[in-house]
């Protein structure tokens, strides 16, 4: 069952439809409801390796629906601390709960200044309204 549209106020967003939850010097990353809705039900999540370095705006993995594949864009630079094994095993969990059980990776933030470059919820919603 796909979730209904939402963009929680406690998250920050990247224009490529990724979200970040900042937790001190770590961040949890995932794909927004809008991005998941466009892709359809996820059937495969190709995760990065733990320890892999992420560059802001660069690809850190892939997600696939039945008919489409999309790169995951890192909203922040950092290194991978943990991959959500449940999302690898059952990727459609992301469609059901994009901001909860459907998180993808946890990273150590490399440059805290980059957090300020992310979109606040209102700015992300405004971006969607233009599309």
């Amino acid at each position: 069952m796909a979730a209904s549209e939402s963009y929680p106020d406690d998250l920050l967003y990247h224009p490529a439809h990724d979200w970040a939850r900042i937790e001190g010097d770590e961040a949890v990353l995932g794909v927004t409801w809008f991005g998941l809705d466009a892709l359809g039900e996820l059937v495969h999540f190709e995760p990065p390796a733990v320890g892999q370095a992420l560059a802001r705006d660069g690809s850190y993995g892939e997600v696939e629906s039945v008919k489409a594949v999309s790169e995951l864009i890192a909203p922040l630079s950092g290194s991978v601390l943990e991959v959500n094994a449940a999302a690898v095993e059952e990727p459609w969990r992301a469609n059901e709960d994009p901001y909860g059980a459907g998180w993808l990776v946890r990273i150590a933030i490399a440059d805290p200044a980059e957090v300020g470059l992310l979109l606040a919820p209102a700015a992300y919603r405004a971006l969607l309204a233009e599309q």
Partner: protein
Amino acid sequence: MPFAGYEMPLLYEGVIPEHRAVRGDAGVFDVSHMGELELEGPAAEGYLQARLSNDVSRLGDGEAQYTLLTNEGGGIIDDLIVYRLGRARYLLIVNAANRAGDFEWLASGAPRGCDVRDVSDGYALLAVQGPRSLERLGLAPRPAFSFEMGRIDSIEVLVSRTGYTGETGVELACMPDDAVALWDAILARGVVPCGLGARDTLRLEVCYPLHGNDIGPGWDAISSGLRFACALETEFTGVETLREVAARGPARRLVAFRMVEQAIPRQGMAIAGGGEVTSGSLSPMLGVGIGLGHVPVALSAPGSALTIDVRGRMRRGEVTVKPIYNPKEGRGRERVVP
């Protein structure tokens, strides 16, 4: 949809539930884009026999046949279904993309006494497929590849026991003006509307080739796994080449495979050893990546290990017997994808 910069098609999210509806109950597809050609006249049967790979003389009125329009090299100009409407009148339902080319090929060589007409604008076509499709439409079971005139509510339709999903089902041809009413009448009977995305995953699970992906003019019909649609004892365009290929055995084959490692094969991906994926997707019923691909004959036996280049990652797969998923045996099997 500018999602993260990839150019692959983003289709709608209903593929898996639609697919499941067809495997478990009944779904309807609007396939009105398909082309219809009619051949009529005393020379029609003989001409079709000389152009189509299967034995059209085996058809009686009300019977249909899967067949191929072949070129001189035994390559596949199109795959189609031929319907015998009468002793001297045949209907061909062809792939939309090949409609113009098929018409030209057939019309240009037609002898006196065989009129070739493109009647595509005179037909709408809805496919109702799934184990409960006949029951939901109130139709009696009939042999596969038979057809007859009938009515759904008060709408006159040509009911054909054919389809592209591997399930029991019918294809309903009607006048274009009746198409909306027919669609509504079908939905009113609890049949689930389905898109062409689900049609593609359904046909792939049962290994029906898609012209333009898996088969085409550059691949002969025997190597493409369509020996069953070639009546090699009849005389038709390209038959000599096909007899030779059948006698010496093909060098390459179109095979079905499933992934052993987690990955989804896609059209155009390389298969190590000189092969290529021609169709790929996730199997909604099996929960693994599946596909069709051309491989050298040494890699073509069921059980052969394949290595597929999934955007730079080498992932293992295995050649399987066709179909990859058998609707009759698979009924009730545990689904992996919810």
